[in-house]
């Protein structure tokens, strides 16, 4: 049973729909901005972020929206786009036991956590808390709110593994369709930009500190002047569908999801390792029924950190040999955490569809220890049949998925 992607939706720092953000990628734009107001936070050294442009929340009914933080709003809007793209309408047909929603976020809303605890401490108790706060911070907030936004009453799962969340969600969705349990899976992830997210990386010296006055020059994946990542936000949602369902409703497939793997590192919470990255790519290829020679392009996780980029470059060259076409989209978009896997999968499908490789933005001089790969440094026309997309996360989570163009 093949699994196809039949719909895509995204809100990103470079635009609030797939065509807009992919157009911005092709033009080499950056979504990164400086947040001067973050200078007030003691101990924070990185003042960069990549916010999603203003969007219209009024598309979501108030009684659903009241329990949403920004991440759930973005996920719901991306879901509306993806369903429309797949020619699926919320309602009776979608409320089938053969349909699953699986999506997540790194945590509940950091904005709401901050507001809740600020008031709790100031007032010495829960006096004055809003009834809807919990629905914004619970671990399955994004999945539950998306379900409510489309009147969905079927199966729901909410995986969470930080920056690999949406990749894992997609792979589990793929597994469950392959297992014959579901025909349609609405999957992806979302996260919202907050200085606390940046501080998590800043504390471990992984956030970019040297480009606060030149925001669009960071992050710099694989570059010898990289100094860390830039936190972004957004939502990416894909509709995965069984071959049987695609045929039954005469749907238009966009790409085939061939497979993927999610393996934990098992040794360290933050230090990624080429060895375990290599292992997950081998496992992903095996589960997809592919070999390294089938892959034309690797969409790297590479966030612009000193250590992570080196380990990933080593792992890619170990799996694919020298010269694999590779790029990272973090230089354009920043790192949207739980959303990045879905957004990068969408961009990868667009690259296959349009026959073009998006380069790594801000990659001027490849660092000596970030090779030997064929680093894509400019928009490059290419026939791309199969993409491997990596995403790695704190907690020692390694994931990769494989997508193929339709012949």
């Amino acid at each position, binding site marked *: 049973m093949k699994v196809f992607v039949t719909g895509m939706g995204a809100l990103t720092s470079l635009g609030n729909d797939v065509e807009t953000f992919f157009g911005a990628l092709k033009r080499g734009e950056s979504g990164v901005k400086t947040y001067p107001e973050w200078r007030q936070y003691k101990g924070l050294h990185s003042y960069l972020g990549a916010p999603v442009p203003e969007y219209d929340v009024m598309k979501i009914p108030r*009684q659903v929206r009241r*329990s949403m933080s920004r991440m759930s709003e973005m996920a719901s809007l991306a879901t509306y786009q993806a369903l429309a793209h797949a020619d699926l309408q919320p309602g009776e047909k979608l409320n089938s036991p053969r349909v699953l929603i699986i999506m997540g976020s790194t945590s509940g809303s950091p904005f709401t956590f901050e507001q809740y605890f600020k008031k709790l401490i100031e007032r010495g108790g*829960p*006096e*004055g808390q*809003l*009834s*809807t706060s919990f629905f914004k911070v619970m671990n399955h907030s994004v999945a539950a709110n998306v379900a409510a936004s489309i009147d969905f009453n079927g199966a729901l799962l909410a995986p969470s593994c930080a920056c690999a969340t949406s990749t894992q969600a997609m792979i589990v969705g793929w597994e469950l369709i392959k297992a014959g349990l579901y025909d349609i899976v609405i999957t992806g992830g979302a996260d919202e930009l907050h200085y606390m997210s940046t501080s998590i990386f800043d504390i471990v010296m992984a956030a970019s500190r040297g480009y606060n006055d030149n925001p669009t020059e960071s992050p710099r994946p694989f570059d010898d002047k990289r100094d860390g990542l830039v936190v972004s936000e957004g939502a990416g949602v894909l509709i995965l569908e069984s071959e049987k369902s695609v045929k039954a409703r005469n749907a238009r497939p966009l790409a085939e999801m061939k497979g993927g793997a999610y393996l934990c590192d098992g040794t360290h919470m933050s230090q990624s390792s080429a060895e375990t990255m290599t292992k997950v790519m081998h496992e992903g290829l095996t589960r997809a029924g592919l070999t390294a020679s089938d892959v034309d392009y690797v969409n790297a996780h590479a966030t612009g950190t000193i250590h992570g980029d080196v380990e990933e470059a080593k792992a890619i060259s170990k799996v694919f040999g020298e010269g694999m076409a590779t790029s990272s989209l973090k230089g354009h978009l920043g790192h949207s955490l739980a959303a990045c896997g879905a957004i990068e999968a969408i961009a990868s499908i667009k690259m296959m569809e349009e026959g073009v490789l998006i380069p790594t933005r801000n990659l001027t001089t490849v660092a000596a220890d970030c090779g030997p790969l064929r680093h894509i440094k400019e928009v490059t026309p290419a026939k791309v049949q199969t993409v491997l997309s990596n995403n790695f996360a704190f907690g020692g989570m390694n994931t990769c998925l494989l997508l193929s163009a339709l012949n």
Partner: protein
Amino acid sequence: MSLIELAPEVIAQVNQLMMSGFEIPAEKLLPSATLIGDLGLDSLDAVDMLVYIEETMGIKVEGERLATVKTLGDVYQLASESMAASAQNLSPVLDTATQTQASQQL
């Protein structure tokens, strides 16, 4: 509920938070409008409505009183009485459990 004279500024403030907090159009804000049927609120909204009233008007509202509130006119009355009580420093501090219990009766 003992009736006291409704101050126009209280009505204006309650109407304003109904519009900003719950996106209710001005033309629906009639004293006879029921919170559940006419204005589309529910128990979660009721809890938040009390929080908004307390914060925007700087008063304390007895959570138990929520059980008697059915219409927007009742909200005006509750806000007015709470304002008067707060001025005399008579109103007890709300606790969340009481708020929620009362709101579930809406």
